[in-house]
């Protein structure tokens, strides 16, 4: 099988080649195929500058020579299609929380725009609620068992604590804002999930005030109005490590008790339980492909289908990390890509279509990676124990202190 008939498709109008079969040597690799396409394009358009392409063969990335790929995948005929490397564009501000008890707002160029200080203990998680013009709302969750709702005016660069959400009896490890931006959910070490309103008001929720009135009062004065949870979801037998909203009525939580639970926010009941064998560190849900990705205290990233009825079915596991997977995140605009961070100091970009190896290893951190995220425009972010936040474009990397 020295020659293969292949047809090339692309969705990018700029790089369309004629829809006719080409005869390609079977030993050719990605680079050779890319050259072929470039030649074709040059023939059509003299002003074409060379571009590196990637190829998908029946939904799988081509990583080896065509012949070996076909042998491993058991394909007899190949119709490669072009995939373009898109260059991600500009994004907005980045919010981080850290062990120095503060949250910070950064620009993507790596300049700190604002420091949000107010917690008495480590900030465990942060989230944007919404932006309206120059003011935006943000949330910080902390080990001091509170979640603070802040209002940030980017013009004046002022931040003001609007609400202090009290109710958890353990450190609040994770928060997640619902798609509409009106509610958020928090998960805590005290095994509870709580749903809160994210709408800032000027009224303080009534709280049953026990003893120590003066101290409490002092705090509320400092940190804005106290807010109580709308709903408490209990069921986990261990600490909740990660929560997220699947859609506007569904909350998904991962816990140290080896389960992922999906809750109905309307009724407050549990809908599904997915049971794993290890502690879950993090989960992520992609509405594009409707898959849950989970990172646990072993080296695998597992993909779940939360809608399966026949128990907890692991669809796929992505194995390349050598330490605990501490963070996973699906790309917001891509159905197949996710990024993961691990205790082995690596951030990896995965494509579920090539599950055997990651697309890229992003080795920038010098210590454990604790969080990863995407910006809405597709910039990847990662933060680690080396006190650094890195942002990545798809191909180039840039580091920011």
């Amino acid at each position, binding site marked *: 099988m020295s020659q293969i008939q292949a047809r090339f498709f692309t969705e990018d109008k700029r790089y369309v080649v004629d829809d006719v079969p080409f005869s390609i040597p079977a030993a050719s690799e990605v680079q050779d195929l890319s050259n072929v396409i470039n030649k074709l394009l040059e023939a059509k358009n003299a002003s074409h500058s060379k571009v590196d392409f990637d190829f998908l063969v029946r939904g799988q990335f081509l990583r080896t020579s065509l012949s070996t790929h076909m042998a491993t995948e058991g394909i007899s005929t190949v119709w490669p299609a072009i995939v373009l490397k898109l260059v991600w564009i500009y994004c907005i501000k980045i919010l981080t929380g850290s*062990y120095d008890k503060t949250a910070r707002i950064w620009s993507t160029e790596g300049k700190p725009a604002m420091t949000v200080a107010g917690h008495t203990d*480590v900030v465990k998680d942060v989230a944007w609620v919404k932006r309206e013009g120059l003011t935006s709302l943000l949330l910080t969750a902390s080990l001091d*068992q509170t979640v603070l709702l802040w209002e940030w005016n980017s013009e004046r660069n002022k931040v003001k604590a609007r609400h202090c959400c009290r109710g958890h*009896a*353990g*450190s609040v490890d994770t928060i997640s804002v619902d798609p509409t931006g009106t509610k958020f959910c928090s998960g805590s*070490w*005290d095994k509870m999930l709580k749903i809160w309103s994210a709408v800032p008001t000027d009224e303080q929720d009534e709280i049953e005030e026990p003893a120590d009135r003066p101290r409490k009062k002092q705090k509320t004065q400092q940190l804005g109005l106290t807010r109580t949870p709308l709903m408490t979801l209990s069921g986990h037998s*261990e*600490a909740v490590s990660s929560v997220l909203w699947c859609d506007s009525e569904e909350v998904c939580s991962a816990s*140290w008790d080896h389960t992922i639970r999906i809750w109905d926010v309307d009724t407050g009941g549990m809908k599904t339980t997915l049971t794993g*064998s*290890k*502690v879950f*560190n993090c989960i992520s849900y992609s509405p594009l492909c409707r898959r849950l990705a989970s990172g646990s*205290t*072993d080296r695998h990233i597992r993909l779940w289908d939360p809608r399966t009825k026949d128990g907890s079915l692991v669809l796929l596991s992505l194995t390349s990390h050598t*330490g*605990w997977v501490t963070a996973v995140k699906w790309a917001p605009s891509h159905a197949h890509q996710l990024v993961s961070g691990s*205790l082995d100091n690596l951030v990896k970009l995965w494509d579920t279509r090539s599950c055997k190896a990651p697309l890229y290893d992003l080795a920038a951190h010098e210590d*454990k990676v*604790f969080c990863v995220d995407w910006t809405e425009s597709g910039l990847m972010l990662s933060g680690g*124990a080396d006190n650094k936040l890195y942002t990545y474009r798809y191909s180039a990397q840039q580091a920011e202190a």
Partner: protein
Amino acid sequence: MRGETSSSNLKKSRRFSLQAPLTTITWMTENLHRHTVTERALQQIFNFNRKPADEDKDDDLSDSEDSVYSGLEDSGSDSEEEEGSDEEEGSDDDDDKMKEKKEGEVSEEKKKDEYEHDSSDEEDIRNTVGNIPMEWYKDFPHIGYNLDGKKIYKPIRNKDELDDFLDKMENPEYWRTVHDKQTGSDIVLSDDQVELVNRLQRGQFGDVNFNEYEPMVEFFSSDVMIHPVTNRPADKRSFIPSLTEKEKVSKLVHAIKMGWIKPRRVEDDGRGRYYNLWASEDSSILARHKMHLPAPKIPLPGHHESYNPPPEYLFTDEERALWEQQDPADRKLPFVPRKYSSLRQVPAFSQFIHERFERCLDLYLCPRQRKMRVNVNPEDLIPQLPKPKDLQPFPTTRSLVYRGHSGLVRSISVSPSGQWLASGSDDGSVRFWEVCSSRCMKTVQVGGAVKSVAWNPNPSVCLLAVALDSVVLILSPSLADKQVILSSERLLSAQQEGEEPAEGNGSVVWSEAEGEELNQGLRLKIQHPKAVHQVVWHAKGDYLASVMPDNTSHLQVYIHQLSRRRSQNPFSRNKGLVQCVSFHPIRPYFFVATQRSIRIYNLVKQEMTKKLQTNSKWISSMAVHPGGDHVICGSYDCKLSWFDLDLSTKPYKMLRHHKKAVRGVAYHRLYPLFASASDDGSVIVCHGTVYNDLLQNPLIVPVKVLRGHVMTHDLGVLDVTFHPTQPWVFSSGADATICLFT
């Protein structure tokens, strides 16, 4: 057929009757027809032999003899008839008177005779007296009996010597006349008979035609022939089963089936043909016979014994000197190998008598006991343990390293919630770590090498006990819910309002922390008279035991009550150097490990309930199963012993997997796991399932060796503890790090 012969005989007899009384002649002829040639030949010889003796007597033959002879001649050259008729003569001659009488009977007699001798091939049996000396009938008128039992009378001998002589002279046939003694008749031999006699006398074959010198056909020679002797092809019937045989067999089978034929009857021994000679013997004697022991075998001779051994078997001077020095009993060889150029030069063996004597002694003194050798596959002796893979979860890999200490970390403890880890180090600090991120949340300088830390197991309080030098500190790390922190503060200050700490026995002083120390989280100081090595909490979190190892005093263990700030020494006597203590998780028992044994005290009854013998030289650590019925104990001589308290005071199992001293042991609170830490830098995790069924022993399977610590000053891992809820194990090492294995 019979009728024909009889009628022809009748004709004959009629014809003969004219000449002589021939009653029996025809009978004889009939008879003789059936004689075979050989028989006849013998008969002839027989008769011939007798003849010469009677020759004289035959001289006086009656007239009838002529007729007889004529009769014979009449019958022609047929020798058979001739002979028969010869023999007839005598009987006919016997009695003239009877002749007429008999004539009438002839026909009848003939028939009878013919009938009687139909199938007979015997010799002449006209006279039934047999082969006896005929002299016996000398005095009787008869010479025997015929077949009818009637007397055969002697022929009337009227010949005298003269007649005989005359007969000799005149009768040309005299020479060939023989006398038959048995019948008393004379017989004249024919030419053929005479010829036969002559031939036999010459030593020739009786048959003239027989050629005794026929050329020999050598069918069987020494030569190997290509072709078979006969060229005849094998019959078809030799290839097909015989039908007749089949028929016979089927008949037999049928008969056996029907029960007509009994298949060979087994000879029953009921009549006592054979009997057991030793049946009545005593069974003990027989048993002794069964236990026969063969004599020990003499070892086979080796090269040493050779008269010309290879040079390596010959003794060197040193070996010879050694051999001579050694006691004869210790010598490897009883002789010195020597080399001779030939077997002839080998002298007599000087030790022969001695060696025989030794052999006799061996035989005489050999142990008369049979060693029962059991053939067991060594594989079968290994207990069937489940595979470690089936016993998951258990920690397998090092996931996190907690770095920050600068001295060796002696002791670690995990908070009951599993969120925090406290560690005490020789660098004089106690550090608090977040388990999941390995971040050091807090460092408390306590000003001395920390020997032991213990987190209060009560989840509603958040306190840490720290032992350093001769002080036990109570820390409130404030790493918990506000309510919890409040309640622990309340517990500590409860006594404050009441009376001042009752200094029950003076030696222990309770004091409050102040100023800077208070900000660090220190709350209480309990001053002991001696250096404290270990602190341990009761499961309820109010009582605290501290150990001050001291061989000379009985003040080695104190039990402190936190809420009342009281201390007491439960033991009034020194039972040995106390290594470590532990509370029973449920019942009011107190475990005290001294150097070699573990004593279990009932705190309510204030008495010792059990003493466990560890069989180890120096106990280093001890852990009590969360169920309370099992104890593991590590020792400095590399052993880990598991005690089943319900089973015995001896170890149920000894695990010797470590290469060096075991420093710490721990049970998991929920999972069936236990771990041991050793100076060889490894932590061994074992699976230990405990069954509720009292009959089933615990299942102990070593599942994993965890390595991660660097050996520092010959010390490896110093302490090991499990996470309260996850199957994770923490280990602290002499390399100033703490590892988490998951």
